[in-house]
């Protein structure tokens, strides 16, 4: 079941993130069922799967919003379980949200400055008195924020409240808010959801820029198979909380289990011996998965 094949240059390096036999359940519902994977520094790791497969839940486990009932999650060798969300962020993990979670009353600039929060050393008393140190710090962090504003072309939206801006721009601000943290790991939850082809291409370019120019390790959850197959170094596929495949995009595309999960199979659901059905579907499936013109478009909640 676990076809772990990773790009050759990752061999021999310590993983940045490890997911070890993680299980997350809500009452009777098992959202994540015994999932394991490793993400290596510099990698662009994608997680795909049908709706409700547990992709966003995986992110929520990493960022401390959900608490898995079993297993281990480590980041740079440190156990993340039990840490509150803000402590996990302080370790260098930033994320964006599937549904835009900007602070609607704050301007673009203030939204991005909240992203710098963990890098400040001031406290409420120094902030209130606003002499010397607090002011110098504010100026220094403003400089970093302006670099990201430049990187993402957000100049013209700087002083506008986030809720007044178009959806595509809000998505970009959210990416910026994650980037200003100078994270070691970036979790992107459906960055291209709800975007047209042109906007999707912009997002893809930014994701590649983040990888190539900033060198940040990324985990990407995305329904747009074109984006995933073109950008990702490695892909893990979840279905009903279980990992059914992992490997390079091309390998995953032709994996019988993946095709069954996305396209359904007429016979032998749940068995391991679906080779005949899988082989059949593989030919039709290859055309469907990974083809931008015929996208798997299930953009709802996962």
């Amino acid at each position, binding site marked *: 079941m676990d076809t772990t094949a990773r790009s050759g240059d990752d061999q021999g390096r310590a993983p940045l993130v490890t997911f070890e036999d993680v299980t997350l359940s809500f009452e009777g519902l098992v959202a994540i069922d015994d999932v394991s994977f490793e993400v290596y520094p510099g990698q662009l790791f994608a997680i795909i799967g049908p709706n409700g497969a547990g992709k966003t839940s995986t992110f929520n486990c990493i960022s401390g919003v959900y608490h898995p009932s079993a297993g281990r999650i480590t980041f740079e060798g440190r156990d993340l379980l039990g840490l509150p969300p*803000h402590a996990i962020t302080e370790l260098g993990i930033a994320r964006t949200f599937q549904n835009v979670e900007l602070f609607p009353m704050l301007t673009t600039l*203030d939204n991005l400055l909240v992203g710098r929060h963990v890098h400040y050393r*001031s406290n409420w008393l120094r902030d*209130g*008195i606003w002499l010397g140190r607090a*002011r110098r710090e504010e100026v220094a962090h403003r400089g970093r924020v302006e670099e990201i504003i430049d990187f993402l072309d957000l100049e013209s939206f700087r002083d506008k409240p986030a809720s007044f801006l178009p959806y595509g721009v809000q998505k970009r601000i959210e990416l910026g*808010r994650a980037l200003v943290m100078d994270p070691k790991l970036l979790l992107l939850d459906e960055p291209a959801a709800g975007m047209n082809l042109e906007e999707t291409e912009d997002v893809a370019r930014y994701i590649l820029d983040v990888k190539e120019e900033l060198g940040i390790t990324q985990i990407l959850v995305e329904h747009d198979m074109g984006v995933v197959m073109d950008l990702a170094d490695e892909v893990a596929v979840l279905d009903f909380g279980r990992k059914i495949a992992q490997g390079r995009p091309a390998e995953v595309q032709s994996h019988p289990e993946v095709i069954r999960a996305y396209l359904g199979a007429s016979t032998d659901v749940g068995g391991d011996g679906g080779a005949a059905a899988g082989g059949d579907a593989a030919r039709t499936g290859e055309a469907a998965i990974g083809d931008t013109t015929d996208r798997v478009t299930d953009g709802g909640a996962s």
Partner: protein
Amino acid sequence: MPTTPLSVRYEDDLRLFASVWRRIGIVLLAVGVVAFPFVVDGRWVMTANFALVAVVGAVGLMILTGFTGQISLGHAAFLAIGAYTAAVTGDTFGLPFWLSIPLGGALAALVGLAVGPFALRLRGLYLAIVTLGLVFIVNHLLRAFPEVTGGLSGIRVPMLWWFDGPRVGDATWELGPLTLASREQLYFLFVLITVGVVLFATNLRRSRTGRAMNAVRDRDVAAAVMGVNVARTKLEAFGISSFIAGMAGAMFGYVQTFITIDPPFNLIMSIEYIAMIVLGGVGTVVGAVLGGLAFVAIGPIAEHLLGGLPLLSELSSSQQQRLMFAVIVGAFLLLEPLGLYGVWIRIKIYFMAWPFRY
């Protein structure tokens, strides 16, 4: 506007009074504030003193409710703690006001930090109800120890310059042609405190702490994932807010010179402060200042306007004031939810776009 200079450094962009207009405005305001007690009738100086108390109290509530989004009906309790601290430390121990005011703030902040943890688990109306309980608990405690607090018969609030020393207003100051009696001295002391509190809140709003508070108000889960310690931010808001409320309470005691428990420190006072920040504009320091000033100014205006009307003239002056205030706040909620601050923004935009409509 050509008078707004192009900022080339981030320092310039962060300045409070960057444009020429703002600098002219602040100088005019300063001149007006200093000249005020010498050009108006003495009764209005007294009104101004109450207004300054309201401004300080409203800024305190603005930090908790406006910045951090924690609705509190317990504001009157913090004011009561501040006022009674000033009364007891002044009357019994002979402490000077410049010690009593921060002491009142500190004691109120302690109680605020004790109530704060409720906000970690409760939101919205549930938090409002818990903080409402605080008003009754504090009132009960003040009544339960009459040997300390004077109980139902009330207590004097002496405002001393020095330990067991002379009181503020004992001596009338002569500055050339100007005379500063008790209420003028109080006025200038209160102006200093108010300016300090307003600056503190403004700085908070434009720095890391204030942004964290706003983030918690708007989306607390996202705030936590951005690295904001939500629990700590809420507690900071409670602590700072109740400290300022305690200071406002002490100031209130000094204007009254003699205080009782209920009235004035009851649920109505808490609601009045919420109405003030709604009237002024939730989420802004300017809103708290405008709301506090407007609230106190409405009293004399209401008396003047409603006094001549049938039926309404039979109400007591405080009833008239409350009626007028209720109508105005209701109208603002319906017509301009951003409050007086929103009105000000509209005026500004109108003149910036002039002679065009928009």
